[in-house]
């Protein structure tokens, strides 16, 4: 198995002629928590959507397991990874149905769906929520359902787009614990996009700073947070530049 789950080569994306991402070269090592850090509107969400194959890059390539993407593999690859959106939109059904959805579209049998969903709901601490309507939950609960929805699929890669941006501190803590747990317990590669430096510090093994559509610095989280090379990163870490 290739040590890198995903590598990108000069990945670029334009919207209406405006460059959002410019020649992104990323290497995402398996089994690690990667943080993509940068101010809002810098293209973090776009990058995640490109990696999850929800959108097409304007140019550049994405390699999975060291192989370039082929059109035929799209669905199969997409099913090996999952993206939790910044503001998750849940289906207007029960919590159980929401979490089971990804398994159902994979046509798993009912028994194993039931088992996996129960387990996932336990992990996100929503054990007795099975029959509640997803739309009636609080923001934090919704976010946890969305994570359970993704986790239950046992993806190789889990993308999280600003998973705690609108939440209260208690829910932030719960969700951060959850992310660590998922990564350690299931060996899932996690890619988290965040503008919150403290969150990145708490969670990430690897960090990539995105600024102006380019990667300005990338490497081991510890090293970057202690001895940043780039001036902008330093200012950010010192809290002088608020994203």
């Amino acid at each position, binding site marked *: 198995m290739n040590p890198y789950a995903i590598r990108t080569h000069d990945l670029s994306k334009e919207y209406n002629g405006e460059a959002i991402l410019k020649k992104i070269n990323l290497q995402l090592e398996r089994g690690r928590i990667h943080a993509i850090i940068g101010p809002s509107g810098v293209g973090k969400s776009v990058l995640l959507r490109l990696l*999850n194959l*929800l959108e097409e890059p304007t140019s550049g390539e994405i390699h999975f397991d060291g192989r370039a993407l082929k059109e035929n593999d799209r*669905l199969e690859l*997409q*099913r090996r990874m*999952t*993206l939790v*959106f910044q*503001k*998750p*939109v*849940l*289906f*207007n*059904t029960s919590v159980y149905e929401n979490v089971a*959805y*990804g398994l159902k*579209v*994979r046509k798993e049998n009912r028994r194993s769906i039931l088992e996996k969903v129960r387990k996932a709901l336990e992990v996100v601490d929503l054990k007795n929520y099975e029959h509640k*309507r997803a739309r009636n939950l609080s923001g934090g609960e919704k976010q946890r359902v969305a994570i359970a*929805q*993704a986790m239950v*699929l046992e993806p190789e890669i889990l993308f999280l787009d600003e998973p705690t941006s609108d939440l209260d501190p208690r829910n932030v803590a719960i969700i951060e614990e959850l992310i660590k747990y998922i990564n350690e317990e299931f060996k899932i590669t996690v890619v988290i996009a965040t503008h919150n430096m403290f969150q990145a510090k708490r969670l990430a093994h690897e960090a990539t700073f995105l600024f102006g559509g380019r990667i300005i610095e990338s490497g081991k989280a510890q090293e970057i947070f202690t001895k940043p090379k780039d001036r902008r990163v330093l200012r950010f870490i010192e809290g002088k530049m608020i994203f």
Partner: protein
Amino acid sequence: MDYILAGLKEALQLLLSFDRETYTIIFLSLRISGTAVLLASCLGIPLGALVGLHRFPGRGVITTILNTCFALPTVVVGLFIYLFLSHRGPLGMLGLLYTPGAMIIAQTILATPIIGALSLVAVKSVDPAITKSAISLGATRIQTTLAVLREARVAILAALIVGFGRVITEIGAAMIVGGNIKGTTRVMSTAIALETGKGKFELALALGIILLTIAFLINAGLYYLQRIRE
């Protein structure tokens, strides 16, 4: 005034005594219009989803056609189907004229654009993020469409009810292609017209009451469904 009351009283008597002719007409109506709505939803819902969720050339044209057919005069549909099903017409050999089958065809044609157009509006009103969620969770194209339809289910159910309301009360096409044959193609709407013409207001009133009751029950059911969904 008292002859209206007398009519109402006799109407209730007909219903409560389970008058065979009355109930034959009621069940025939429900059977024909129910089948037609079922068929029309098999055509209309996929059509609405296709036009509402995908971009392709001719999309605007289809939308316009659907909206035009919304107001399709029932007698015109009846006439066209008569011309096709008549023994002189291209489909005469099927022997469907003056059978419930012919009425089902006519009502399907009437209900499909309604169900299609309303389904279109229904899927369009679903949050586009649902599509992205479904894809990200590994759904295929068809599964994604089904997920969107599931989100829009209450509105689609309402579309079916509007379609059902249109065909069960429709009279022009039913009269022309069904022929209002007693026991075979006499449905509530044509029977009401006939009995009113005959001056027998009791049966007409009885059937009118049934039509209203059905409409009420369906709407009450819909309201209840919406309530428990929220």
